[in-house]
């Protein structure tokens, strides 16, 4: 702390660098910076010297060479003749896919378990406590293994679906659960399907507009419109009408057994399912605790004051408790989303081709470009994590309380 009491002007002495509060912190910062720069210089020169001695150089040319390996699940065009860069893109998109899916399902699991853990029902409360304690206290790596093993060992092979009297049959004639993954019907977009999709998107916007209008009407005239049924109607009716007017342009492509495997529909590979499900239930258990903490952080007095004013419990939750709980829930939620993204690198264990498995695995091994690959890998995770963190911080600032 600096005293501003008009002290006698002392002349500067070197000992003041350590004893005077005005200079002390600057002194230590200079020392820390010097140490850091020395460490970076030492490691850098060490790397350069060793690369020289081994006759190596840093080059990113390998990214343009053919990768020479196959990838089982890709969302973008890829063959073994594609470049290493293309393989890296496949990995990046696969990482983003599983992280995105797992973030959504983990949030759903977490919110449900967190709210139910505060339930008045003894059985539900204890079940949720059991879920949280079991899943967050066993490493996620083991969960991935368990689920993958169950899928590959206990599910029937595609061949079990063959013959006149097959050992297994497809659920509802359209879903096939096999040890290679799950096969589900995929949409086939005919002419005019764009209009149906556009109608649906417009309906979703329409629902928000309706709810906004209903709130505004309540504020302006005091009339409260029903919310649930009109919302459902706005959401579904125009899309269904448009679907039939245009002659059912969207059809379904059902998976069917051809040769040794299922063809058609959408295939979700066993590795993706194992990874997705394991990350979701594992991180969901952590999110459940955040949600519970957030709700409990809002003091009982808030609920009581709202109740004393005549608000019912649903409204109290929406108008009073949740807006306050969210600001407690959001920051740890950010770090859980970051954890999902980083933990998705465990994909390599079950052969899911994420960025760590492609660029950081096979490409690295085949080209020997360890430093380049690892640097790129680190950069990727850093960019993604900082991106998630930034978006969530913007949201967090928007829900923050004003104190001064």
């Amino acid at each position, binding site marked *: 702390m600096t005293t501003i009491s008009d002290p006698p002007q002392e002349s500067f002495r070197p000992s003041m660098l350590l004893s005077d509060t005005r200079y002390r912190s600057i002194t230590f910062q200079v020392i820390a910076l010097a140490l850091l720069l020395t460490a970076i210089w030492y490691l850098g020169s060490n790397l350069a010297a060793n690369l020289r001695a081994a006759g190596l150089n840093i080059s990113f040319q390998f990214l343009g060479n053919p990768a020479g390996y196959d990838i089982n699940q890709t969302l973008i065009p890829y063959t073994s003749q594609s470049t290493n860069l293309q393989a890296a893109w496949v990995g990046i998109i696969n990482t983003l896919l599983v992280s995105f899916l797992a973030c959504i399902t983990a949030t759903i699991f977490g919110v449900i378990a967190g709210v139910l853990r505060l339930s008045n029902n003894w059985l539900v409360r204890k079940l949720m406590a059991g879920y949280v304690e079991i899943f967050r206290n066993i490493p996620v790596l083991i969960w991935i293994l368990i689920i993958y093993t169950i899928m590959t060992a206990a599910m029937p092979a595609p061949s079990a679906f063959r013959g006149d009297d097959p050992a297994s049959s497809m659920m509802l004639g359209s879903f096939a659960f096999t040890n290679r993954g799950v096969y589900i019907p995929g949409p086939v977009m005919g002419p005019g399907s764009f209009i149906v999709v556009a109608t649906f998107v417009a309906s979703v916007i329409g629902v928000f507009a309706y709810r906004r209008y209903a709130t505004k009407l309540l504020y302006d005239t005091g009339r409260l419109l029903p919310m649930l049924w009109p919302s459902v109607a706005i959401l579904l009716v125009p899309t269904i009408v448009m679907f039939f007017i245009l002659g059912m342009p969207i059809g379904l492509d059902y998976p069917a057994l051809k040769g040794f495997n299922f063809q058609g529909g959408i295939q979700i590979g066993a590795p993706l399912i194992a990874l997705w499900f394991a990350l979701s239930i594992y991180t969901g258990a952590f999110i459940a605790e955040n949600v519970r903490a957030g709700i409990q952080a809002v003091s009982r007095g808030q609920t009581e004051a709202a109740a004393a004013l*005549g608000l019912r419990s649903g409204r109290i939750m929406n108008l009073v408790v949740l807006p306050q709980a969210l600001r407690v829930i959001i920051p740890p939620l950010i770090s859980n989303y970051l954890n999902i993204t980083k933990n998705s690198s465990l994909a390599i264990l079950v052969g899911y081709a994420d960025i760590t498995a492609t660029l950081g695995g096979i490409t690295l091994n085949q080209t020997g470009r360890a430093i380049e690959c690892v640097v790129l890998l680190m950069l990727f995770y850093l960019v993604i994590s900082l991106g998630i963190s930034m978006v969530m911080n913007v949201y967090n600032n928007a829900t923050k309380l004003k104190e*001064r």
Partner: protein
Amino acid sequence: MAETAQMQVSDEVAIRINNMNKWYGAFHVLRDINLTVHRGERIVICGPSGSGKSTLIRCINALEEHQKGSIEVDGTLLSSDLKNIDKIRSEVGMCFQHFNLFPHLTILENCTLAPIWVRKTPKKEAEETAMHFLEKVKIPDQANKYPGQLSGGQQQRVAIARSLCMRPRIMLFDEPTSALDPEMIKEVLDTMIELAEEGMTMLCVTHEMGFARQVANRVIFMDEGQIVEQNEPEAFFNNPQSPRTQLFLSQILGH
């Protein structure tokens, strides 16, 4: 003052509590409470901590459940039916020791939330009402600030205004000045005195004996979940009957 106060009390019964009992598990917190409050009456409830006085007034608007006996507010018998509870809560306003303002809403929004969502008052009208009551508690200029930006005394006055916005016929105060600095106690008490002068039916759990002398037309002393003694303030303070009351008064008035 005491005489004008007497004149405002009507014969109409606002609250009638009959043989009410409440337990927390095995702990018998309220024992055979019998209390009739007439419209316009101002009652101060005092007693040592743990005597059940807060619990008693919290039972009146169903923040706590009672297990035996009956509570009747404005002719409505309190039951566990939601509609019934809604009706009683819309008649009864309450102020808490720790204010319990909603920190994520502005002062004005705090005051309009319940009128809009419960009374279905148009926002503009609700805001006019809110400003009217904020002027009454003398803080209209703070309307667009957040509770965290106000002093404790100001927050409690907002809490009173927030309750009044629902146009209650009965007000409950649960130690409204216990969490305040001495200089802020006065501004809150002044607001409460003004409210009393307008003829509001009030039940106050408080240790402000000056307030009790000036405003109350009945003082109730509770101990161990029972109403030990009740009387007009003059008689209560000058001539307490039970030894327990005498001891309590000597302790709180002694310093």
